[in-house]
């Protein structure tokens, strides 16, 4: 996308004003436009990826030193119970968290589209607010809310003389995190859907009403299909994000009494391997393996939705 824009700007120059050899100069101009982005892109994305790819082909042992490993790290990664366990968790997590977030976001957006006035503006802001809070702060805040000693959940429970469940214990950590993630991201998705809704021509609603459609029918039969591409976009975002789950569990780890393990998600595992066990080679391989899984998941998703969403066709 960013590549095309400057080029088309170049071709927009009237032909008469281009001197001889203009093709070359146009090309140069194009590159100049791209340059700032390209530099950052190469320095912070391409080069690190290439370097990590290179690292992943080697192996380093405490007693052996560095040796060439070829694809050994990759075969090891896909057979590694820690990696598979983490992968299984994020897959399980995404099956629930993605629909949940989208339903919350869609319902909120549809409601906000119906109502007007000061309340609507205020609600919109409030629903969006969690996204404006940095992930780390949000996670820390929930860590406090969940705390069995200081947290309000426990205090409310003790008011009724019962013990509140610790939402980060082994059995509950799935739900504890589900809550944090949904809280943090639904507002953001709501804004995307809401923006798509605002882009719909209102005469369509009028036509629907003349045909006898009620408010609910308009919402479900007209609005939802028309924001289909926005929904597809959100799905891809949240799928990628959930498979790369890292920040929230990493922040909540120290207070989770061991239920968030070093191999809780593939990303945490890669981080742990690199920065605690100094296995940069294997960590790179794990990162690439995860990248591959994300790629496959997104490709499958796009294949399934190829007819419905106009976004990817």
């Amino acid at each position, binding site marked *: 996308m960013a590549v095309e824009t400057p080029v088309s700007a170049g071709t927009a120059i009237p032909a008469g004003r281009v001197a001889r050899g203009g093709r070359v100069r146009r090309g140069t101009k194009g590159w100049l436009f791209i340059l700032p982005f390209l530099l950052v892109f190469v320095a*912070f*994305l391409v*080069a*690190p*990826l290439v*370097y*990590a790819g290179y*690292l992943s082909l080697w192996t380093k*042992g*405490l*007693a*052996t*030193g560095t040796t060439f490993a070829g694809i050994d790290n990759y075969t090891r990664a896909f057979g590694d119970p820690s990696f598979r366990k983490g992968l299984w968790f994020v897959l399980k997590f995404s099956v629930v968290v993605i629909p949940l977030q989208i339903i919350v976001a869609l319902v909120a957006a549809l409601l906000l589209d119906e109502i007007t006035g000061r309340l609507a503006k205020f609600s919109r802001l409030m629903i969006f607010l969690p996204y404006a809070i940095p*992930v780390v702060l949000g996670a820390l805040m929930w860590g406090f809310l969940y*705390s*069995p*000693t*200081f947290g309000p959940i426990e205090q409310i429970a003790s008011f009724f003389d019962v013990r509140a469940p610790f939402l980060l*214990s*082994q*059995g509950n950590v799935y739900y504890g995190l589900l809550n944090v*993630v949904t809280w*943090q*991201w639904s507002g*953001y998705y709501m804004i995307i859907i809401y923006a798509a809704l605002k882009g719909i021509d209102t005469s369509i609603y009028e036509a629907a009403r003349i045909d006898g459609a009620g408010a609910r029918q308009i919402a479900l039969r007209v609005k939802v299909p028309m924001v289909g591409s926005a929904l597809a976009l959100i799905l891809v*975002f*949240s799928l*990628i*994000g*959930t498979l*790369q*789950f*890292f*920040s*929230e569990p990493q922040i909540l780890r*120290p*207070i*989770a*009494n*061991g*239920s968030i*393990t*070093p191999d809780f998600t593939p*990303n945490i595992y*890669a*981080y*742990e391997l*690199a*920065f*605690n*066990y*100094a296995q*940069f080679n294997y*960590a*790179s391989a794990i*990162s690439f393996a*995860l*990248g591959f899984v994300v790629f496959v998941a997104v490709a499958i998703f796009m294949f399934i939705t190829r007819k419905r969403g106009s976004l990817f066709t």
Partner: protein
Amino acid sequence: MRFRTTLSVVAPVVLALGLAACGGGDDSSSGSGGTAAKATNCTNKIVHEDAKKVLVWAWYPNMAKVVDNFNNQHTDVQACWTNAGQGQPEYAKFQTAISAKKGAPDVIMLEADQLVGFEIQDALVDLAPYGANDVKKNFSDGAWKDVSQGDKVFAAPVDGGPMALIYRADVFAKYGIKTPPKTWDEYAADAKKVKDAGGPVFGDFGSNVPAVTTALMIQKGAQPFVYDLGDKKNITVKLDDQNTKDVLDYWGNLSKQGLVGKEDQFTTDYIAGMVGGKYATYVSAAWAPGYLTGAGVGKGADKGKFAVAPLPQWDPNNPVSVNWGGSAFAVTSQTADKAASAKVALGLYADNASLTDGWQTQTIFPLNQNVLKSDDFLNAKIDFFNGQTVNKDIYVPAENAYKGAVYSPFTVYYYAQLQAQIAKINQGQTTGSQAATDLQNQIVTYAKQQGFTVQ
């Protein structure tokens, strides 16, 4: 998550690249180890600006005083101190700096169980040529052995961690426990007694202090590792012996019956529990009171409620003394000036003023014999323990009986796996015996991956 974590996949890689790319570059007066970080942004004030500055990473709670003492007493070299994290977070930073060949401090505080892991990577400097043997006379043979390999000395010892049973005298009195448990059987029986009477949990089986569990395994007679840096490639791993299983089963059963807590230690929730008397005992080391006091335990309404007894034994006729933590100062091989750094490593926390402050606040249990044998130290009535003469009665005998331990060169990994197993035991997903067997398999697999020959 989402966009922002797209970065997190790339971030480690970016960092690795950045660090590696710069590895060969600037300021190349150092040896093979790479370049140390520059001694800027010190937490402390430099007294003599013109002197050579040495960057130190340490986390002793009274470090500010210790550094000031050193800097006031030296004109040729100055310590520039940063707290890079307590224990594991600091080791992770150091490990990354070693991999990057750049960014390590000149002098670093390390626990005894971490030394071998860094020695095997050639990350530490042998201090023997820089005057280490001049201070050898200040330490017991055992303490010196912990920091050396043959004739090589890799760190200057500061403090040890003889373990004992810290307990709440008020809780014991309330539930009629007249004498602290002398054996682990009595400990379990007392725990049941307190619980049946509706009291608090007796202790805590926290997953994030695997070093404590390892010490308790060693107390029963387990020897998890046999390793000698002189024979670099061979290691013996024995984590599935009966002694290890017994200890893990013992704590697993206490935790299952709800007699001890399952909370991680040093968290805000845990400290709040310590303050509130939620735990009747605390199996811990001599330096613990200093950290607890710093976190607000044993003050106000809680003042004088704590007492300490010798660590319970498996066989009271053959008591075994064990150790948790205790640290030393090592010089990293990334330092630009080995002599100046060695001077700091050997001189920091070695002066009387610092040592006295350290033991009086119970931040350290000093290993310096001059302190250990001094009347002031032996007869000190410790406030935290309501005036008990704990040094003479409990900790010095424990330290004298401590025989030393052998650590593996991958302590960080071993602790992480033990931690995961303890968490599983606490959640009722495995038994102590099964955890020991699984742990053995994990560690053996890992050792082989790292290129060791496992005996």
